């Protein structure tokens, strides 16, 4: 789901970097206001590494296999740190595997990171209002699936804005549908995995779900 180098025009790349700069600045400001930056950095780096490695696990979805993104879970666990952690993860994916790209790093960070922040907030609000094990699991599914959905929407929006003019409208609609539908299995998988992860963490290490706080 990451946009590789060369696809987007310069304006999109620069715009992506600008948006990422703002989001990073806001995240870091929120972090330093909380006053636990000293403790948060090692934690965020270790967790970013775990999420990075988790993306190596391939899930077979007939007939292809997909890999996990888990940005919703990152938002739930890391809170404000999710954005910088995703940015760093994408950077290493770009320089290690050319998965995503360097010029498109900013755009990709926004596509992955903003839904993560949203999922973190949503999870905190929802579990505050409707707590309980079963509901928490439901919220886990919701945050996992919806953050992928939002990412796909943002991805589609970016592609349509920069290429839409030159595709005839009916084809464009088809392409958008295909793009969205092809990500539905991933949404469900991410939802299920995030849900069972949230349940697991609640049982084993509940304070890990307080990232959004």
């Amino acid at each position, binding site marked *: 789901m990451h946009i590789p180098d060369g696809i987007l025009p310069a304006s999109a790349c620069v715009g992506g970097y600008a948006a990422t700069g703002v989001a990073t600045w806001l995240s870091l400001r929120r972090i330093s206001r909380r006053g636990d930056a000293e403790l948060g950095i090692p934690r965020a*780096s270790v967790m970013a590494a775990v999420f990075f490695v988790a993306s190596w696990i391939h899930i077979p979805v007939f007939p292809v296999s997909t890999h996990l993104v888990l940005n919703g879970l990152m938002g739930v666990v890391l809170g404000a740190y999710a954005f910088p952690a995703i940015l760093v993860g994408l950077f290493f994916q770009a320089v290690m595997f050319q998965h995503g790209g360097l*010029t498109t790093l900013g755009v990709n960070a926004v596509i992955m990171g903003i839904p993560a922040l949203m999922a973190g907030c949503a999870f905190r609000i929802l579990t505050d209002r409707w707590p309980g094990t079963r509901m928490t699991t439901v919220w886990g599914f919701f945050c996992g699936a919806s953050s992928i959905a939002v990412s796909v929407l943002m991805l589609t929006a970016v592609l349509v804005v920069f290429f839409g003019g030159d595709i005839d409208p009916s084809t464009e609609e088809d392409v958008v549908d295909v793009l969205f539908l092809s990500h539905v299995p991933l949404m469900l*998988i991410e939802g299920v995995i995030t849900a069972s992860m949230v349940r697991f963490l609640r049982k084993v290490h509940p304070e*890990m779900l307080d990232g959004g706080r």
Partner: protein
Amino acid sequence: MTTELDRFSHLDSVIHGWDPRTRIAGLFVFALAITRLSGTLLAVALAASMVVFALSRLPASYLVERVRWPGIFFAALAVLMPFIYGDRPLVVVGPLVLREEGLQLLLTTACRFLSIVVLGVTAFGTSRVTDSVRALRSLGVPAILADLMLFTYRFIHETGRELRGTRTAVKLRGFSLRKTGPRALRVISALIGSLLVRGWERSEEVMLAMRLRAYSPGGSRRAEGKPNLADFAGLVLCVIAAAAAVLAELRQGGG
């Protein structure tokens, strides 16, 4: 899966000798310009990127390895793009219309992709990750982000080893991770969940270990030498080349 970014950082070449700050900045500006180029100018830029790569003495196999992953993406694009993009039909095969703009866009995109990847591989493959990140820091990346990058890089290897160990353990007890179905998803969640919990617990120790060595985020860091004249010359060369190419492209587009 190889994660060895430092593998060829010890080689000796003009590019290796180029100060990482000016190198990364210069090549990045050039790469950004490439996203704006097309036609002959793009071909020239691609050739220039290849020359830079050749100067770095990185083995070609390293580049090929890097391009393999996104190659799949481009294969998909290659199938799709020429048929849906643009409106000037080139060849009509049954219900499918091969369009000129689509084909052109595909070619352009592939060339841009290739030259940017070549530049990226050269920029980051010719110094150790630590030095690259330090360079990024002096180029204005916030200190906290730079620390995050360094520590993450280190723990990617540690966590990767844990994942391999857990995979072996799962296999030893008769489960194949290639399976599909709800149970497979449950096992994978449990597996990632335990990596997360271990990571969390590890992070408490890492924090302690850092405090024991007087860490404060973005605290005092190594005073680095200044890039020399040649380093700056390289940077200026890149910027001029990038600007010239973009201007030429704009003039072409205008005319």
